[in-house]
């Protein structure tokens, strides 16, 4: 069966979608990702969709699911590289991708992930100091 590869990079997981997605493939990616987050204790997931030429309501929902599931597993998700035509289509379709963090490219996505994680750690430390 086809699979989209997931790469581990330090605390992060990196997914570059280079093929046309069909529903089954997207669902497999969703479950693979959540399992990898658990397996590698990942703090962040970066999904590069720069090669994806269309996103419809199903794939949008999968992206939302991945983001929500990772959140519950204490990992942040950033989607990067969306093509302008895809963004226009998504909004007109009525799919605002709520709760998904986006960045223009991989570099900025990585920055965003890092800042989110340090932010989380700081908040945790503050919480700890209150309880003392």
């Amino acid at each position, binding site marked *: 069966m086809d699979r989209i590869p997931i790469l581990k990079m330090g605390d992060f997981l990196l997914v570059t979608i280079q093929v*046309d997605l*069909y*529903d*089954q493939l997207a669902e497999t990616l969703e479950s693979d990702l959540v399992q990898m987050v658990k397996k590698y204790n990942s703090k962040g997931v970066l999904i590069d969709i720069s090669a994806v*030429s*269309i*996103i*419809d*309501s*199903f794939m*949008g*929902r999968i992206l939302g699911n991945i983001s929500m599931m990772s959140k519950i597993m204490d990992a942040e998700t950033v989607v990067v590289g969306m*093509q*302008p*035509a*895809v963004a*226009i*289509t998504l909004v*007109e*379709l*009525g*799919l605002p991708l709520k709760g998904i963090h986006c960045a223009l490219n991989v570099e900025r996505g990585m920055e965003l992930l890092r800042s989110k994680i340090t932010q989380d750690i700081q908040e945790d430390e503050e919480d700890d100091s209150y309880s003392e």
Partner: protein
Amino acid sequence: MIVTLSKDSIKITREQDTIFLRNRVKEWATKIGMGLVNQTKLITAASELVRNMLKYAGGGTVDIEIVSKGRENGVKLIFSDKGPGIKDINLAMRDGYTTGRSLGLGLPGTRRLVSEFEIQSVVDEGTTISIIKWKNG
């Protein structure tokens, strides 16, 4: 008046066929010089409708046509299936309504993405949806 210039037909029986259909639609849209944004809208619409067809009717046929109206060219897609049909079309066209566990954006969202949208459905006989995206529409 809308004139059909050329025509092709694709059978849809499994999920992977959607990729073939998307590529074919892209090919035809490129042929008439449709811009990237309109192409993306059309292909996304096709993808939504094919999913419905597979999910509710287990497959069907998609006819692709290049049509022209006056000086405007466009791509027309006709999705026909022999599925259970839609009981209440007005309800199905409403944002957020779904009988499955999806977001309920498929039909109303698709209508927003294309220039012309027509739906006919008979319960227990099937559904036919035809959409047109004009090159500059």
